[in-house]
């Protein structure tokens, strides 16, 4: 790594400052070891018919963990649908480490457009991972980064590298260093036990957050990725909880006359929008978490629920049947100027604003089928991405390119699925159990 040391500039990832705030959890720093050159290859995330980019991710040097890291990177890139990792058995050049220039001819022969190679070393109990991304046909290095982390954080390093590769080649932020909170279901239909669970976005490290003594629903992340809010239902009461993932501290949003449900954080994490039912009428409220004061935003006698803030916090999209069937409406964050945005025939529910502000995702029922779809915030450009017996409850990856949702077959348990925003890349999540109500975290630090 003499090349790295001789470089005058020393960059850290944008998230470094934040990462230092909880170094106890994960101490990771990243150092740019070469300035990226201009990429000649690029992956277009907008085209639905794009051919996945052939990419080679040979096992990183440094023993078992090197190979494991490569496999996690390869799987991430493959699942994105934008990359096609090549079979390692086809590789001609063997034993490539981050310290030597690849023999480009060998990689051109197998038509690898891009190449990710790396080296893992252990120094003073720390894992150091150097990796480089190459444009094979231009024979150029596109990226060179070094990560330092505690050895058990090797998967997180692999996700960070995946994000760096994705961003360099697509021009958009990645979404691999993220987690998913969801409702893990077990037991026979009609006697299902529901527990809050959390896992990495690739299905690794699953663990339960609640014991299953009450029905839990609709968990959602706050923007800091450390708080979730969810609804808990017992035989005689409902509660919305705030739950801190780091401390395990759980507190109720408060006591309300009637049912309380459908919570979701504001983009700054300072408020929760939720629904309160009183004498059969559900309306949308917002609570300021600092002052614990709540404000009623809707007063219509219809069902008003499933509020979701726009990323700038100025508007709220919600679900209402005030026109006779459930449709989507957008109002100001103060409850003003509600306007219907869903126009097509069918029933629209579970709206959720994308992190980029570009789209609103929803569940639509029409013709006896359920669909996950997206539309612009003004209701234009509606696109249905999926169709099945029961698809429900989309959640956005932090880059606004992928949606996760739950899918049920008749009589079967719900499973977690994902679809990209073009509708082309539809696949089950790599989680073997039954799950519903997924919520994707923001990018982690």
């Amino acid at each position, binding site marked *: 790594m003499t090349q790295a040391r001789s470089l005058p500039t020393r960059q850290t990832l944008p998230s470094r400052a934040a990462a230092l705030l909880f170094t*106890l*959890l*994960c101490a990771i720093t990243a150092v740019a070891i070469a300035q990226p050159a201009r990429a000649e290859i690029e992956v277009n995330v907008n085209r639905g018919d794009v051919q996945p980019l052939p990419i080679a991710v040979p096992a990183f040097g440094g023993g078992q963990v090197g190979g494991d890291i490569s496999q996690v990177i390869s799987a991430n890139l493959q699942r994105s649908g934008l990359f096609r990792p090549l079979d390692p058995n086809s590789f001609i050049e063997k034993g490539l480490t981050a310290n030597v220039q690849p023999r480009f001819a060998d990689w051109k022969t197998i038509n690898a457009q891009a190449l990710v190679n790396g080296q893992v070393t252990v120094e003073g109990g720390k894992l150091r991972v150097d990796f480089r991304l190459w444009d094979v046909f231009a024979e150029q290095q596109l990226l060179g980064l070094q990560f330092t982390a*505690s050895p*058990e*954080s090797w998967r*997180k390093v692999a996700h960070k590298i995946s994000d760096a590769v994705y961003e360099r080649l697509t021009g958009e932020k990645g979404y691999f260093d993220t*987690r998913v909170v969801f409702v893990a279901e*077990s*037991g*026979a239909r*009609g*006697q*299902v*036990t*529901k527990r809050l669970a*959390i896992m990495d976005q690739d299905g690794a*490290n*699953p*663990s*339960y*957050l609640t014991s*299953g003594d009450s*029905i839990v*629903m*609709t968990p959602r992340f706050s923007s800091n990725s450390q708080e979730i809010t969810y609804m808990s239902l017992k*035989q*005689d009461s*409902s509660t919305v909880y705030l739950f801190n*993932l*780091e*401390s*395990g501290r759980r507190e109720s949003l408060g006591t309300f006359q*009637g*049912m309380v*449900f*459908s919570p979701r954080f504001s983009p700054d994490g300072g408020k929760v929008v939720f*629904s309160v*039912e009183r*004498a*059969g*009428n*559900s309306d949308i409220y917002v609570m300021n978490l600092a002052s614990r004061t709540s404000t009623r935003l809707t007063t219509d006698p219809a*069902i008003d*629920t*499933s509020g979701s803030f726009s990323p700038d916090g100025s508007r709220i999209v919600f*679900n209402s049947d005030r026109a006779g069937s*459930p449709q989507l409406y957008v109002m100001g964050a103060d409850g003003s100027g509600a306007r219907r945005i869903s126009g097509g025939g069918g029933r629209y*529910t*579970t709206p959720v604003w994308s992190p980029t502000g570009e789209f609103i995702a929803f569940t639509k*029922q029409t013709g006896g089928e359920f669909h996950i779809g997206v539309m612009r915030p003004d209701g234009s450009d509606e696109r249905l991405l999926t169709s099945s*017996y*029961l698809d*429900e*409850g989309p959640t956005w990856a932090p880059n606004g390119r992928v949606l996760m949702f739950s899918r*049920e077959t*008749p*009589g079967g348990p719900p499973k977690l699925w994902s679809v990209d925003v073009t509708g082309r890349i539809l696949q089950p999540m790599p989680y073997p159990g039954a799950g*519903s*109500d997924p919520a994707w975290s923001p990018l982690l630090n």
Partner: protein
Amino acid sequence: MVRSFTGSTVLRLALIATAAASLAACQSKPKPSFPTQTPPSSTGPSTPLPPSTGPVSGQPVGALPGSTQDFIVNVGDRVYFDTDSHDIREDARPLLTAQSEWLRRYPSVVVRIEGNADERGTREYNLALGARRANSVRDFLVGQGVTGGRISTISFGKEQPIDTGSGEESWQKNRNARTAIVSGAR
């Protein structure tokens, strides 16, 4: 609580194994099973009224009068709704009228109306819909002279189906409101 990236790989694997074991263990977790009643087969308001929903005195009584069993068997604890509707159907009125008579006869009984929805809707909307159904029943009973303070309501949305099949026959059963006795029965 959840502390990712701190434990060793071995511990992590152990956690996954534990999770899998708990998942398996949970298959046999006992759950409260709700008494069920077969709904009328037709959904239209013009259906003939079901014959066996008369007042307590008209029934062959096997249960102690005023008991929860008496209420469930001789009155009926559940009424059914049309798709996406919370209107009390004509065929539900005799049963609810009998419920109100029974509740007036046993004034110490406190009940909770539990609204339910079928699986052909999304979770949050169905919670709201179930709450409407529960309140429709509550309003009906209050209208028949049952004191409002004796009746609470809750919605289970689509979380507690009484029929786990898929198809209109099952969905019809799952669109219901159940009057559950909380206390005060003999």
